[in-house]
């Protein structure tokens, strides 16, 4: 395209006009929703779908007339998978942009980097991710499944399909360590025995010797809370050794970032998991959600557990604002604590007033042809791990992440 003076002037006029638009929008009175997610870098497989889900939710809220008669405006920052940027952008959202609510954070480290800032500045904070449980703070709301909700469902099912001897392979950081402890507890509760536990740093990608070790221990079942791309090699090498036909596998993390679409069907088939959401959930709510997603983004393939959690988090917040009838933080918390619930793509989600965690459906699933087939639905499971240690109605000033002793 050649650029002459006339169309240069025309396009710069258009640009100048476009750049004035946000100001017009800002001048109007809006509700500001802060979003802080890794939409680039090594965690963007999680962050990008979460960002898409947040924008979809806000778009739907605005299309339905906004909240309290105002439009919701998104103020989003990309933390580039860098934990240091979380504290910086967290400060910026709370102190400079003065947003009304913050949704976001993916890894537990990122949540802890911004949680205290939100608490100090009295900015309500929603962490919409599956995590290790135990956070007790009146200012935060969490709607992801915790290990007890998930593991308690998964372990009896998987042991029923295999046997009593269980071998655990976990990621070597707090999520994996705490989850491994929960697995051991539920294996024992169900009359089983843990014959081995191995932890792996996030960059380990060679599991040959581990696979041999597992065979010499001779378990009936392997449960693998492994995290990230390097650990994905385990499932691949397990299948390459022909073990997938011999010892059944279960996982508490595989599929959260749509990893089952990266594994081939032969590698993934039969792996047992338990989550709040599956694309294969055959409910009218999920079908409608996938249609809306596809209408917005062209294809619904990117939807995963975390995206749906984020969508449901934004929708829960919106419902709480409607019921509170004001943007005041204490009014919002009071309406969240009133036993509020919404119907999301993954079913009914109720806020647990005592812990600010969520009561939700957990689906036991099996991987089949790069999808997650729902085997059994356990309705409305309580976050019992956090409930055991956290009671915000008795101690509203609590500000701890409890390490759970089993």
């Amino acid at each position: 395209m050649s650029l002459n003076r006339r169309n240069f002037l025309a396009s710069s006029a258009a640009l100048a006009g476009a750049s004035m638009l946000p100001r017009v929008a800002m001048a109007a009175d809006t509700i500001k929703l802060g979003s802080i997610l890794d939409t680039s870098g090594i965690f963007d497989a999680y962050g990008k779908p979460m960002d898409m889900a947040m924008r979809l939710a806000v778009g739907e809220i605005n299309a339905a007339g906004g909240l309290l008669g105002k439009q919701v405006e998104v103020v989003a920052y990309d933390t580039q998978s860098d934990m240091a940027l979380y504290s910086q952008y967290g400060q910026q959202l709370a102190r400079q942009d003065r947003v009304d609510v913050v949704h976001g954070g993916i890894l537990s480290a990122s949540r802890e980097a911004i949680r205290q800032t939100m608490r100090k500045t009295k900015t309500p904070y929603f962490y919409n991710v599956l995590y290790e449980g135990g956070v007790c703070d009146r200012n935060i709301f969490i709607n992801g499944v915790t290990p007890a909700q998930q593991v308690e469902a998964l372990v009896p099912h998987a042991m029923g399909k295999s046997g009593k001897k269980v071998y655990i392979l976990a990621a070597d950081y707090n999520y994996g360590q705490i989850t491994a402890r929960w697995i051991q507890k539920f294996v024992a509760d169900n009359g089983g025995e843990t014959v081995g536990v191995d932890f792996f740093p996030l960059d380990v990608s060679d599991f040959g010797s581990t696979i041999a070790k597992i065979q010499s221990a001779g378990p009936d079942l392997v449960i693998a809370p492994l995290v990230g791309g390097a650990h994905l090699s385990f499932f691949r090498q397990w299948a390459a050794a022909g073990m997938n036909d011999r010892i059944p596998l279960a996982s508490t993390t595989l599929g959260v970032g749509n990893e089952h679409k990266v594994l081939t069907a032969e590698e993934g088939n039969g792996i047992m998991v338990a989550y709040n959401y599956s694309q294969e959930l055959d409910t009218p709510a999920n079908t409608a959600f996938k249609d809306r997603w596809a209408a917005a983004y062209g294809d619904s393939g990117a939807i995963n557990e975390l995206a749906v959690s984020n969508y449901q988090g934004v929708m829960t917040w919106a419902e709480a604002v409607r019921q509170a009838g004001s943007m005041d933080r204490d009014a919002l918390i009071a309406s969240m604590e009133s036993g509020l619930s919404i119907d999301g793509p993954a079913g009914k989600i109720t806020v647990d007033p005592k812990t600010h965690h969520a009561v939700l459906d957990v689906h036991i699933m099996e991987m089949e042809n790069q999808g997650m087939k729902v085997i059994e639905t356990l309705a409305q499971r309580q976050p019992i791990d956090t409930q055991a240690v956290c009671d915000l109605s008795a101690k509203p000033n609590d500000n701890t992440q409890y390490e759970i002793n089993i």
Partner: protein
Amino acid sequence: MDLIVVILVEMLYAVASLILISAGLAVVFGMMKVINLAHGEFMMLGGYATITAVNLGVNIFLAMLIIAPIVVGLIGLITERLVIRHLYGRLVDTMLATWGLSLFFIGLATMIFGNTTTGISTPIPGFTIGNYQINGYNFFIIVVAGLLLIGMLTILKSTRAGLIARGAMQRSDMAAALGYSPDRIYMATFFCGSALSGLAGAVLAPLVGLVPTSGGAYIAKSFITVIAGGPSLIAGLFTSAGFFGIVNQVFTFAISPVIGEVALLVAAVVLLRLLPQGITAKFFKGKL
């Protein structure tokens, strides 16, 4: 008994994979004295070349053994012409330049393939040894590493091209005086080194989930192996890969994979304290 066989296979496999990931670096760093911090990224590109070719319907062995080395070799050739050739003999500058290259390749791969994990499954089924199932692909890697060593030895020792290359690496001025262009020889050697890195990345691709930053996982191990190997190219590669692979697997089986990795690093530190010039400065002196 079965377990001993399995452990032996795993040890051989660990040694073989160290040889594979270090061979390209041994040529580029060991022979040419170019500190190639983009070595891991060459491997990563080899992996992507394989996966792309397989997804386009090419036979997986053809993709791994032919296409990936050629693609990465050509990328290395372009890199050498544009960047590296201006920096021969300037160690620190090549370090900086190749580090920049590694960032460039990571960015490029992210743009083309996206920052998500991709992969293909292994083409060889697992098989049974007594009560154990093992990964059949391990044998393929052992065979490839063995053939690679023999091939390198043959070329360097018994062909005229190998002789010229070795000569030019030792005294480029003498090679030039005898009528060989050091510039051309360096170019060809860098091509071979890059192609070897590409081969390694390609052969390991079915075992891992590949992301654009995958290269970082290999770089430390390959440098340790090459530096601990010392001045002799092949003997150094073989002895240090053998030593580290066995140490790593013994501790992995006895304790845990984490301790296995720790043991490898501790062994490297101790080894370099005792033999600062590398294994082959003391043993196998003068061998290739």
